[in-house]
């Protein structure tokens, strides 16, 4: 099956900053793909390049097999984009924003009415149609932006950090909406800086420094992660930090509440436990999660 979205060896620089360094991934119809990574990893640049808003320095972007810049007109008819920044008109109401975008897509009146009613219903914005966009809460604003991006029923939907600045309840709502669309066969690319949201995607790509450092089904990725993960309990915090920093076996150490969480090379748990005992602390095994995986992969990239 031809991928709905494809990034092939994308490279892009802004002055001296290399935003993308050979980014490749693909999203298939009916798939929810998560581009997960910290700020400045290159997520927005990747999305803008795929949407045809930026030219890649080298490499190719493809939307339904088409070049989003050269065949922009055709691509935009079947692509929905929800940018990260506020990009609707704050002084227009929900209704007026929807009508404006509906007319840009030249939807016939009846079609527009039917779709906007449905979208307002599923986003639960129906009671607020007269409210101006800049008077909406973060979650409501994102849902309106989503509705605007879906009016023309795109086959491909790209969302740049849709859950940023959204409360947990609205965040769950947004994800539920995305599942619904994917179930209908849409290809969805969503970017997020939150590692815990990676598990919600069908497939994820961990992006760092402008390229993927891991890619796959979230459960598989965590299961096949061969490093050991421990909680460090007790002991003097700064002594522990110093001891861990001196050990090459420790791939990543991060604070988790009052404790430390460490990711250790396979089979090196014993040596680390000894060092911690010397610092008056003890090691307790923990289940690996996405953040551990990400930190470990990031540290390995830095070494390589």
């Amino acid at each position, binding site marked *: 099956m031809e991928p709905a979205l494809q990034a092939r060896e994308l490279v892009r620089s802004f002055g001296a900053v290399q935003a993308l360094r050979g980014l490749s991934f693909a999203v298939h119809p009916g798939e929810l793909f998560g581009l997960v990574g910290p700020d400045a990893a290159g997520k927005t640049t990747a999305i803008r390049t795929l949407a045809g808003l930026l030219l890649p320095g080298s490499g190719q972007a493809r939307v339904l097999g088409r070049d989003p810049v050269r065949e*922009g007109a055709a691509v*935009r*008819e079947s692509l929905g*984009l929800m940018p990260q920044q506020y*990009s609707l*008109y704050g002084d227009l109401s929900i209704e*007026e924003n929807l009508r404006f975008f509906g*007319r840009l897509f030249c939807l016939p009146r009846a079609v527009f009415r039917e779709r906007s009613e449905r979208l307002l219903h599923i986003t639960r914005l129906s009671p607020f149609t007269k409210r101006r966009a800049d008077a909406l809460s973060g979650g409501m604003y994102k849902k309106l932006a989503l509705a605007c*991006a879906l009016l023309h029923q795109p086959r491909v939907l790209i969302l740049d950090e849709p859950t940023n600045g959204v409360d947990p309840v609205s965040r769950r709502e947004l994800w539920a909406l995305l599942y619904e669309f994917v179930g209908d066969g849409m290809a969805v690319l969503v970017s997020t800086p939150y590692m815990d949201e990676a598990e919600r995607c069908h497939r994820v790509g961990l992006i760092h420094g402008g390229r993927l450092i891991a890619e796959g089904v979230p459960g598989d990725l965590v299961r096949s992660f061969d490093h050991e993960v421990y909680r460090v309990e007790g002991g003097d915090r700064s002594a522990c930090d110093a001891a861990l920093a001196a050990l090459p076996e420790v791939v990543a150490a991060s604070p988790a509440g009052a404790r430390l969480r460490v990711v250790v090379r396979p089979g090196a748990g014993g040596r680390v436990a000894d060092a911690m005992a010397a610092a008056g602390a003890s090691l307790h095994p923990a289940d690996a999660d996405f953040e551990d995986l990400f930190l470990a992969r990031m540290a390995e990239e830095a070494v390589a």
Partner: protein
Amino acid sequence: MRQPVARFFIRVGALAAKEATHIRRDPRVLYLALGMPVVMLLLFGFGVSFDIDRIPLAVVDRDQSEASRRLVADFVASGDFVQGASLASEAEIEPLLRRGGAAAALVIPKGLSRDLARGEDVPVQVVFDGSDGMSTTQALARADAIAQAATMRIRREGGLSAAPPLRVSAWTRFNPTGRSAIYLVPGLMAYVLAMVSVLLTALTVAREWERGSMEQLFATPVGRLEIVVGKLLPYLGLGCLQVLLVLAMGAWVFDVPMRGSLFLLGVVAVLFMLGMLGQGLLVSVVTRNQMVATQGAMMSSMLPSMLLSGFLFPIENMPLPLRTVSAAIPARYFVHALRGILLKGNGIAEIWPDLLALSGFAALVVVVSTVRFQRRLA
């Protein structure tokens, strides 16, 4: 799927309606568009006037007759001059002007009434303080006009029907009373309209960039030309309101006549507004930032349309390089056409070169802004 042409108009309509809603919701745009021209026209119309009235006029009356007193009264009755010191001889004039005791002096030679009775020309002299060139020119024109009127009156009263050769050669056509408002106001209209129009559109595209809505807009199938036209239309409507407002003010407040065709005036004004709005759009497309766009708009509209349009300084008097530059300033053609239509009643036969130049400029800026309007975010 609808036809491409229909889609073009649907999208342009959507953009224009959206822009109109922005304007309605943000009264500052309306103040800027409709209030600023009025304020500026009033300020400039009254403030930057080269008109001078109540010029202190010293009198050297060597004739001391009924006729000489009538002549002095003529000068004073015009309202342009007020009678100042009476001097005994011409020698006293210069020291008086130097002191600023008077700005002009009227010298009536001995034998005025006798010569008049014989029907001979009488050399009446008016001496001006020439240190303010602009005012002097104006005052000279007034003195000319008054002297001429007085001569006519005297001749009429003397029953001389044969017209003797006129001694006064300066004859201000179209502005017989020498009022500067009449020729200033058309230039002022061009200046005010240029500035406000460029500013209006310069802000609108830059605002979309700054607010981030350009990213969303570019993700839709809307075309660049559609955005440009959709942005121009509502402001063109606003611009037409501006033109009407400014014309009405010119007519009511400054008594500017309307001698030509109002329709032709409308055509000229729409072409000029299109060019200016397009220029603002171009500034906005290039700068992408409201602050920079504002400054770019002001610089590119204010100075040329004030200094190089012929509004204040006649283009014929400019050095060649400036004259060449002024050929690229649309305000120059607008001022020329406006003065022609308003003051002389010119028609298409006289102003077609202006129409051509204005259309050319409008087409050029719209094309260039569309081409420069890159659908890229960086």
